[in-house]
């Protein structure tokens, strides 16, 4: 792969009209780690240009689909015309396990006010109220969440007033999300909106006390393919008490009780860092960035938790679990390396996965040639240290920043100042995230919000062994003769988290990068060398 990344970048943007080319050039960088640990600046979290085929979805997708959707007993009602609701119906493949068959699981339902022209013209509040009442009568949920889609914001229905009123009338928790798809520039806006409303309307409502020594919440793990089950099992074996997950395999009561934990673990920084910060400010719960994707990363994350609690017994347990798991991982790694070493991967997905999954590929001996997020911000690329320098544009300004103060009675600092100082070791990522770029090889392409056109060029030039994205990209990539691994839905495979998940992933990628089917594209008669011309009859 003898491509100069800088040249590739130039070539990729050449086709665009001038203004667009200039913008895209700022969203494509070539990594280079400075001696002070600095990385080049990338433009991110800016609006995709009209007419560009982007991977991105909307705020509603981030709010309803990503953050709230996986929780099983908050009943969701989508206020708007039918499509938005239909398209988010069970498409994210989050798994959940209610404690018993009689416990509620609303994940399989897709309720919509299915607005008609009448409501668009005269307002839909009345219908929304009736829909909430009806949903209550049928399902008797503990909580109902209402999501606004684009037209609703425009006609000015006050979904929050309706929620308040119905909360009073029904005596259950009802709250709404102004997550219209035109807010912000991607799903990311919706994550923030979801964090805000959960924080305002759910966190801190359940005071159940725990005797356990090590209590945590897991933030930003959505249990695709059963990842959360694997992680839960690791916690259990280590003697760590998980109070709530946001929001894979979660329920309402545990979320309401999450303020009682002593540590927040942040898995997907992009979608949930707001929650970690707000909980720290209000309740004094510190947070740690962890990553359970990759065997080494999992071991490291468990060790970080033990380090935080600084307890000999916990540390010993963590080491035991790691020692139990690693031999199996080593065997699998050795096996796949014999076939995968030196192969190349590209990852363009999400707001954290394009970083996390690099670990797994490296564990297999594969090389990352290009990566980027669909809806990451600069801090996800360059690390939280750039936060103070990020400019807030009009698209981000319209998302509420909640002002949070310490709770008068429930703010309990978990750590002394000295202990905090001790934990400031950058390796520990205590209340910090270093981002994707510092961990990448110099000279690698990083592309934010990659377009369909750029994807094609990239693949043509580099011919990677595998491309990771989502279902929208999958078949286009495969038309180009490159296998595409879906890292949103996992291609209905998984789990990929933890030690067991790492082994699953190695095997899956091994199978994909060594697939032979493309050698059949040409039929035998199509590949035959042209028949030689009959030799001219020698003339004498």
């Amino acid at each position: 792969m003898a491509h100069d990344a800088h040249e590739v970048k130039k070539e990729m943007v050449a086709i665009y009209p001038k203004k667009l080319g200039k913008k895209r050039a700022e969203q494509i960088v070539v990594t280079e780690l400075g001696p002070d640990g600095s990385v080049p600046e990338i433009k991110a979290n800016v609006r995709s240009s009209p007419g560009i085929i982007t991977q991105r979805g909307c705020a509603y997708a981030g709010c309803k689909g990503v953050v709230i959707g996986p929780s099983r007993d908050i009943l969701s009602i989508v206020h708007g015309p039918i499509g938005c609701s239909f398209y988010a119906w069970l498409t994210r493949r989050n798994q959940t396990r209610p404690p018993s068959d009689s416990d509620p699981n609303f994940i399989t339902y897709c309720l919509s006010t299915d607005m008609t022209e009448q409501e668009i013209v005269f307002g839909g509040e009345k219908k929304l109220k009736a829909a909430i009442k009806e949903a209550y009568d049928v399902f008797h949920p503990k909580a109902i969440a209402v999501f606004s889609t684009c037209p609703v914001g425009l006609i000015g229905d006050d979904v929050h007033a309706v929620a308040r009123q119905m909360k009073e009338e029904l005596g259950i928790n009802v709250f709404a999300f102004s997550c219209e798809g035109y807010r912000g520039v991607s799903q990311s806006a919706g994550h923030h909106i979801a964090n805000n409303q959960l924080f305002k309307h759910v966190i801190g409502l359940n005071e159940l006390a725990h005797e356990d020594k090590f209590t945590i919440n897991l933030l930003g793990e959505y249990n695709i393919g059963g990842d959360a089950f694997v992680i839960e099992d690791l916690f259990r074996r280590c003697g760590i008490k998980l109070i709530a997950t946001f929001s894979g395999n979660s329920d309402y009561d545990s979320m309401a009780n999450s303020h009682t934990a002593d540590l927040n673990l942040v898995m997907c920084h992009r979608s949930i860092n707001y929650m970690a910060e707000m909980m720290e400010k209000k309740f004094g719960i510190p947070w740690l960035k962890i990553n359970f994707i990759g065997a080494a990363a999992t071991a490291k994350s468990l060790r970080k938790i033990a380090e935080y609690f600084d307890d000999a017994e916990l540390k010993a347990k963590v080491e035991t679990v790691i020692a139990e798991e690693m031999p199996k991982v080593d065997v699998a790694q050795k096996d796949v390396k014999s076939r995968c070493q030196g192969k190349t991967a590209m990852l363009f997905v999400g707001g954290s996965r394009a970083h996390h999954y690099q670990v797994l590929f490296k564990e297999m001996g594969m090389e990352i040639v290009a990566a980027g997020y669909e809806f990451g911000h600069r801090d996800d690329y360059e690390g939280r240290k750039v936060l103070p320098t990020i400019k807030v544009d009009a698209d981000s300004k319209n998302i509420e920043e909640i002002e949070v103060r310490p709770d008068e009675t429930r703010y309990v600092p978990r750590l002394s100042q000295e202990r905090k100082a001790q934990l400031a070791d950058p390796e520990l990522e205590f209340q910090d995230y270093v981002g994707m770029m510092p961990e990448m090889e110099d000279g690698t392409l990083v592309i934010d919000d990659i377009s369909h056109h750029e994807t094609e060029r990239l693949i043509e030039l580099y011919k990677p062994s595998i491309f990771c994205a989502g279902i929208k990209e999958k078949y286009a990539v495969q038309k180009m003769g490159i296998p595409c691994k879906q890292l949103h839905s996992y291609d209905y495979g998984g789990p990929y988290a933890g030690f067991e998940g790492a082994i699953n992933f190695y095997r899956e990628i091994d199978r994909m990068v060594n697939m032979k089917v493309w050698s059949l594209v040409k039929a035998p008669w199509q590949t035959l060398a042209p028949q030689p011309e009959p030799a001219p009859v020698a003339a004498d």
Partner: protein
Amino acid sequence: MSADTSAVTNMTASLNILQKPAALPSYVSTRNACKLCAPLGASLVFRGIEGAVPFLHGSQGCATYMRRYIISHFREPMDIAASGFSESSAIFGGGENLRRGLQNVTAQYKPSMIGVATTCLCETIGEDVAAMVREYQEAQIDLPTPQLVHVSTPSYSGTHVDGFHAAVRSVVATLATPEPEPSHHVNLLPGMVSAADIRYLKEIAEDFELSSIVLPDYSETLDGPALDAYEKIPAGGTPIQGIRSAAGARASIEFGRSIRQRDTAAAFLESTFGVRAHRLGLPIGINETDRFFSTLKDIADRPVPRQHEMERERLIDSYVDGHKYVFGKRAIVYGEEDLVVGLAALLAEIGIIPVLCASGGKSGALRQSIAEVAPSSPGVTEVCDYTDFMSIGEKAKLLKPDLLIGNSKGYGIARDLGIPLVRVGFPIHDRIGGQRILHLGYRGTQQLFDRIVNALLEHKQQTSEIGYSYM
């Protein structure tokens, strides 16, 4: 429209051909919808035109959702561009976004056509997109610009099927030009059928030695080959030149009993250019297919090709063979209205009682259409339009059917009841090859029949204590 749509009642219209249905409450919400939204149908149409790129005017999220949905069914690339409204375009209008979007698509794709459909957002604002598109096209008159076609597709007033038909009509109305010389071809307007159906229709027309324009034709663009070199816009699709000549066609054949009264592409071509419109039901089952072949025979003025007659004969032979397995069985069919009508026609022929015919659509013509094709259903046929999957599921509990016929979205109901689901229509995202399911004609009916019988046999085998291997 058969449903009451006052502000608080979006109720399920329950109509009954023979007997009053068990009273069930009607609901405010749509609970697990049995329909998708309008621009999705329009995008499919645009994808079926040679060199065209679908474009949504509105928020980018809608385009992304529709792409992911269409892709999950076809397992093929599907690009839909969007103008990507921001909050300020939502307030001040999206004209500038539209212009820039069209420019950017042109630069990247060099399309021969861009089909612009609207999302709810821009419809709610009330933008005059038609005028914006016209102005853009006129301003670019000296530049190599793609042909633009606009269709208005507010989802709060129609489903994906409505969007589909509206787009076909818009394409024709925009492109068709009066022909000095009549051409001898026939316009085939099949509606939202599978890629395999489209390929088969073209084959039939060829066998009649009729030249035909099938609109849309996504038989290749959404069911293409593995490639050596990637094509930005896949090869195939209805040639634009062909659509232009639609005005001079010998006749149009348009499928869909539910749309016979509507202002469709065929209606437009007839009223504007005098192209005779043959408006038939989807040719599923022998009777409906006979009507289609008779029409072709008349238009082509030649006998039905022997190989098709033989397919018909084999089909009847198999009806006889399979009769003992299917007769008296009870089925629920659901999905797009015209597909439901076609399936009801087939079921009535083979002796399966369509106990419930359900659709999320609301053309208002479903009941009448079913009465026409299945007039003597020996049991109760309940017809519900404007309904949803929870209502279907609730009724299914009472109706105790032996099987379900419809798209993947009914899987939950089939699973709850422990009965087979025969997958047809759109979307099919829990099986491979949804685009290759053949529904139409003698051949498609044959395949449906075989699949229905085998689903029942398999179920019988699986639930039998003995486990016969000879049935």
